């Protein structure tokens, strides 16, 4: 069987790529720009992808490096604005905070506040469902590093949002 068109393969991954990029960038429009740039880059370098390995992992890696190289500096101010919004919410009265706990926007703000290396593994593993091994391979770091980054991300999220139970 001949190989399928890379473009069709990438299109079939778009929902997952958009979700990952949204978590990475914290902004829906920037995320779509990033996904487009990442997919075009992937098509140019398609020969570097090894058939049989996870295309999603490879794409997550491309999105992350593209974000680091080309986009992130432009987004710093946005991130600072988000963190102020988070502080404002955290300062509200207890009842409203409890109501807001399950609010997806609040969770996303907390995630946006995580150090990037933690945010990336959280999006890859907890949100997208990659295994630790796949994430470690995609990021080129040892499994133990993935494990501790993920645990720190989950702990921060638990401490920031979960009140009772801890």
């Amino acid at each position: 069987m001949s190989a399928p068109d890379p473009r069709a393969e990438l299109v079939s991954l778009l929902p997952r790529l958009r979700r990952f990029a949204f978590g990475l960038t914290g902004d829906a429009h920037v995320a779509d720009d990033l996904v487009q740039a990442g997919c075009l880059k992937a098509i140019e370098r398609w020969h570097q992808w090894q058939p049989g390995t996870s295309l999603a992992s490879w794409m997550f890696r491309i999105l992350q490096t593209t974000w680091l190289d080309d986009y992130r500096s432009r987004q710093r101010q946005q991130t600072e604005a988000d963190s102020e919004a988070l502080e404002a919410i955290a300062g509200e009265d207890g009842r409203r905070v409890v109501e807001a706990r399950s609010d997806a926007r609040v969770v996303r703000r907390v995630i946006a506040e995580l150090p990037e290396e933690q945010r990336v593994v959280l999006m890859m593993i907890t949100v997208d469902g990659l295994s630790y091994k796949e994430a470690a391979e995609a990021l080129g770091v040892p499994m133990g590093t993935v494990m501790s980054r993920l645990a720190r991300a989950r702990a921060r999220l638990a401490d920031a949002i979960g009140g009772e139970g801890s």
Partner: protein
Amino acid sequence: MRIDDDTLVAYLDAQLGSDAEYEAVEDALAASPALRARLQSLAESGELARKAFDAKLEEAVPPQLIAAIMNAPLPQADTGWAGRQPVSAGGANDVEDAAAGAAPRPATPAPSAPGAQSGATARPAAAGLGARLAAWLGQGFGGAAAFASILTLALGALIGHYLLPPPEAGAPLARQGEPIRNAALAVALQAAPSGLAVDLGDARVEIMASFTGRDGRICREYALSGPASGHEIGIACRDGAAETGWRLAFVAHEPTTAATEGGYGTASDRLHEAVDAFLSEHVDGEPLDAERERTLIERGWSAD
């Protein structure tokens, strides 16, 4: 043994290395209410993170994004896909000439909306794909058929195989008037510019031309070919009631003949004549130009 967050999270994610490690965690949990509480809040944190991004997965993918990817040129690398499969080489080209000459116009209005049954509630990645296709098409395109066909696309398997177990000559893959159910074909109709051949593994689909019909509906002619699927030329028209947004107005099919066995070959004159007859009966006017077509793709084929 001290159980830290790393271990608890790996326990929750079923990523510990050995049975002994699971037993150690479970013994510690049994002995410590505080550890159980910690496990609970770490579990909640994962659930919240997933839920916070769930909606993104179901959201319709912007057609411009799909179009930008489908329009990207493939590199002429000496390894990998492009080297083995020249994009526009091969059999379908002379069909395009014929189709472009006979300016189109569509066809039979299609009746009843098919009930989009949605059954795919299972979590696993594969089951989610059907729902994801629904998301990018922005329609209720769910259920087993969607699930099967998106898998076909994802695995690069033969779309013709899914569409038609080739019987005798002239038997259509889907009947005229039916909605387009094949995910790969639906995506090509939705996002590919005319003239682009999308290789799907063992078959290739090429969108030949787009045109507006007498009834004002927009239609696209496609050619599908592959060693096992044979040749098919179809005309699909926009229909909001169809699950994928496209309904088949006309189709002509012929199986692969001995002469074209093992290759992509070309459709026979007879097939072209059938399409030309349909077009001349239902169409007068020019195909949409590339710019207009691009605008429509970016708009997701919605009216102005």
